[in-house]
């Protein structure tokens, strides 16, 4: 297929997103809409203390409450289920759905009540009596890293989950040869994606069929396998229903602990059981916080501002249990130099446990914090040698003619044209005029700054970071699949083997199959079989579905097309290369013979006697797709991470009233290149939504804990999500550099915007306050932090 957009019928055209029709009428099918006969409801009792031994749990008063069926504790669970999966080889960091013997963060789930209604279950949790013995606790990552800090998991021996140093290239030599060095620290605050729908799950165990049915608001690879392992049942006894709409996820909807909890209860009680988190359970104990990371960065560069080498230490606060959190230090290795030609890198990745809530995968899987550190470095280089930050980026960018470009850590970037995207943005924004506007604002007494950020979106997610950080893990495939069935009446049905959380996958596969088979995508039905009828899928993580689901649908459709051609050539009595497929029919190129879609369907479904030898009747095809470029295990600490690399370039103008300290985003322009766009509406939405999410991370959102280990931001009145007032009108400048590794030249876009927005906002604010001799090195940069720092700086000057 050509990557030339003008050659496409449906790909890259402004077609509507088919999922939208059910959502605008309130007919989405979310997990809270799943009502099962006889279903019981669960409420949770959280731990009051960040660290405490559980001495006893008295549930007698709770059990006497109306409607209450059961009170579940960790002690029962530990006997009935296996610990939840860890990413790293840390067998003594055991995690169960409820605290076992000891609580490890305030808000951790200690007991669960099952009752006829959620309200009755909540009432009963208030009657549970738990005696605790408080234990020492540690909240700060640097404290937790010290050998004498209180261990969150004594059996593990320390709080260190991961401490691994990679050296790619001749770092010390490059540093020694570089005339300039600078060092700095930046801190990424603990936030998350916080979807408007909390996590929820309903499970029903049938002891006679030996089948566990699960409906969940889930976005997690290997979900059915993980459920089965924890419950110690065969994986084909677990049936996950994929036709559940997920009300937002952006990475975090991985409620394995919730699922094992309700599944166990259903098995125990013989009734369907449901747990829908309330907002407090979600934010405090749902185990869905994002990275919280300290970066110590050293940069070596020359007089021209060319960055030769970088040392980065990233210390991440994983919270009370390990989970997959440490892997979020691994994925950024695939774009550790950003879009720049940095010759060598030393990277020390450290992850520690602490007495905070557990971390889960968040949009970008650690890439956005890393980009914030890299882009801060580039701006500091610009200041150090007195160059415009644009010029420094221009000098360091990988050039278009250097792709595929192998970075020191082992990933080959597929394609890109960073200079052109940047120039297009600068032309669109009129950079000189923008600088004049900034200076005009400054002259009027405002603080004003321009922020630049350039970064990559590694996409097509494989899981190469797993074997890189855990030698016992030998995973080299992260496949996705599609099946197409053309029925006897000629109608096309395509399958998706995962849930979706608003990414428009039904539109994606219909567009791709329509493109290949040259039929109207609107006539194609898209369904999601339950997990037992599914082909392998690794779910929409790592900006992968346009590449992987789109790729699988493409190849499955090509197989059907090939079958049509074979059948037709046989009827015409000619060779396959003497016929052509067009518009759903096949014609002989040299003669008048033609078979329509209906003719071909009829032969395949009803006329075995007309089929060529060795051809199966019917019209069905499947394709299981391997991630492009993913062929081998890591070698010497180097690995090919994701196959494709989208590019984004942000330019932001911010004005700040020096008294109020409120950053006002006056202009926001992003240049975006994700190769061939399959649906422009979807890509635009991802980009705008990602920027909004990034603005939240940069300015507003943080899970704050106090000195007693309590989480202070327990509601949306404290944990601030951006509203329409906080998000400016964003202008998008498009560019298309197709990927050579994908069927249409597409790359990923599910994380776009979010990966560069925090860096751009931070750089703009720091540009605005630089004249005062201050800077901000921790996100979020709150209004109060700005006004305090500005006031203090002005006082110092007086």
């Amino acid at each position: 297929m050509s990557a030339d957009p003008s050659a496409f019928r449906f790909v890259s055209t402004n077609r509507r997103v088919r999922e939208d029709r059910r959502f605008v009428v309130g007919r989405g099918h979310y997990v809270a809409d799943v009502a099962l006969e006889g279903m019981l409801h669960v409420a949770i009792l959280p731990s009051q203390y960040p660290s405490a031994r559980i001495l006893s749990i008295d549930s007698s008063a709770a059990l006497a409450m109306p409607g209450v069926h059961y009170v579940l504790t960790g002690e029962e669970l530990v006997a009935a289920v296996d610990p939840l999966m860890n990413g790293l080889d840390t067998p003594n960091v055991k995690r169960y759905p409820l605290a076992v013997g000891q609580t490890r963060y305030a808000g951790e789930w200690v007991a669960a009540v099952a009752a006829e209604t959620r309200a009755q279950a909540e009432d009963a949790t208030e009657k549970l009596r738990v005696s605790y013995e408080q234990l020492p606790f540690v909240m700060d990552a640097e404290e937790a890293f010290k050998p004498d800090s209180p261990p969150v998991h004594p059996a593990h021996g320390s709080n260190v989950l991961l401490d691994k140093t990679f050296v790619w290239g001749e770092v010390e030599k490059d540093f020694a040869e570089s005339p300039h060095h600078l060092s700095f620290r930046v801190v990424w605050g603990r936030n998350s994606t916080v979807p408007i729908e909390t996590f929820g799950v309903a499970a029903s165990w049938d002891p006679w069929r030996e089948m566990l049915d699960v409906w969940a608001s889930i976005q997690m690879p290997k979900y059915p396998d993980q459920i089965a392992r924890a419950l110690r049942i065969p994986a084909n006894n677990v049936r996950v229903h994929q036709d559940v709409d997920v009300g937002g996820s952006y990475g975090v909807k991985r409620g394995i602990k919730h699922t094992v909890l309700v599944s166990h209860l259903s098995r125990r009680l013989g009734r369907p059981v449901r747990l829908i988190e309330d907002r407090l359970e979600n934010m405090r104990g749902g185990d869905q916080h994002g990275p919280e990371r300290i970066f110590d960065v050293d940069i070596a560069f020359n007089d021209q501002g060319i960055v030769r080498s970088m040392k980065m230490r990233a210390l991440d606060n994983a919270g009370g249990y390990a989970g997959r959190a440490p892997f979020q230090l691994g994925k950024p290795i695939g774009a550790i130099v950003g879009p720049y030609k940095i010759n060598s890198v030393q990277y020390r990745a450290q992850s520690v446990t602490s007495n905070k809530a557990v971390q889960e995968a968040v949009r970008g899987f650690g890439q956005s914090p890393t980009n914030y550190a890299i882009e801060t470095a580039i701006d500091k280089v610009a200041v150090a040698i007195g160059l415009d930050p644009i010029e420094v980026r221009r000098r360091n960018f990988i050039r278009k003619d250097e792709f595929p470009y192998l970075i020191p850590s082992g990933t080959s970037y597929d394609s890109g044209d960073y200079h052109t995207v940047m120039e297009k943005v600068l032309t669109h924004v009129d950079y000189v005029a923008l600088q004049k506007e900034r200076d005009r604002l400054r002259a009027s007494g405002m603080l004003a700054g321009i922020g630049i950020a350039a970064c990559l979106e590694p996409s097509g997610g494989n899981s190469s970071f797993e074997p890189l950080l855990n030698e016992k893990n030998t995973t080299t495939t992260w496949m996705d699949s599609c099946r197409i069935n053309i029925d006897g009446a000629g109608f096309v049905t395509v399958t998706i083997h995962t849930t979706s959380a608003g990414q428009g996958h039904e539109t994606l596969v219909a567009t791709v199959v329509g493109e290949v088979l040259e039929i109207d995508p609107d006539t194609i039905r898209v369904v999601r079989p339950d997990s037992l009828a599914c082909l392998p899928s690794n779910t929409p993580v790592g900006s992968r579905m346009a590449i992987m689901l789109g790729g699988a649908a493409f190849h499955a459709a090509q197989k059907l097309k090939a079958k049509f051609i074979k059948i037709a050539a046989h009827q015409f009595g000619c060779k396959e290369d003497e016929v052509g497929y067009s518009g759903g029919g096949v014609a002989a190129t040299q003669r008048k013979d033609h078979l329509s879609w209906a003719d071909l369907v009829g032969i395949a479904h009803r006329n075995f006697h007309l089929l060529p030898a060795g051809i199966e009747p019917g019209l069905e095809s499947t394709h299981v797709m391997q991630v492009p470029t993913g062929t081998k295990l890591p070698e010497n600490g180097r690995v090919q991470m994701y196959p494709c690399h989208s590019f984004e370039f942000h330019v932001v103008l911010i004005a700040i009233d020096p008294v109020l300290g409120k950053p006002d985003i006056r202009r926001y322009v992003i240049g975006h290149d994700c190769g061939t766009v399959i649906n422009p509406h979807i890509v635009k939405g991802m980009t705008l939504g990602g920027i909004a999410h990034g603005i939240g991370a940069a300015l507003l959102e943080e899970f704050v804990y106090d000195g007693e280990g309590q989480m202070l931001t327990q509601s949306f009145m404290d944990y601030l999500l951006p509203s329409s007032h906080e998000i400016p009108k964003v202008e998008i400048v498009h560019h298309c550099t197709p990927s050579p590794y994908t069927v249409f030249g597409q790359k990923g876009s599910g994380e776009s915007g979010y990966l560069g927005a925090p860096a751009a906002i931070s750089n703009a604010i720091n540009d605005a306050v630089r004249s005062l001799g201050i800077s901000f090195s921790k996100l979020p940069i709150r209004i109060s932090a700005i006004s305090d720092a500005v006031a203090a700086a002005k006082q110092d000057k007086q």
Partner: protein
Amino acid sequence: MKIELNINGVHCASDVEPRTTLLDALRDDFLLTGTHAGCEHGVCGACTVLLDGEPVRSCLIFAVQADGYEITTIEGIATSPGELSVIQDAFCETHGMQCGYCTPGMILTAHALLERTHDVSREDIVEAISGNICRCTGYGQIIEAVEFAADRLKKSNAPRRNKTAKIRSVGGHDAPERGILEAAADAPGTGPR
């Protein structure tokens, strides 16, 4: 306790606990699951329904308090099975959503705005939807949807139900002229209506 509610023009009765929110009653008792729970403390707006045409958080009002109002949920907006209202169609045209979870509340809020006036600026729309949090879209395509719907409604010669109501000022602030406490002190009677 027994309640009788007028929901989407239909008379509905049920027996609920006094503490049952309108949100829970709509979802659990009347099976109108298009209204969604988001935060259940009145910030996110996912549970928005219309009471006498005005957007209200159904998580912050008891079902018993809704007696006597005309309640409109997202299920009452579409013109007939398989059809969409102008606003719903506009949201599809601009892809003013992703996961769809905030969408019913967002559309009802937009519906209330456009029942008042079809002459809306971008600022009017931003102000109107500022109580509805969307985590997916960054609001851009939602604002485009409402602009598009307003334009189509303006050109469609469609009557408005609520044309006497004034749009809230977006000039400087959205607070009332007088403080809430002073206004409450002067208000006759107790509670709504």
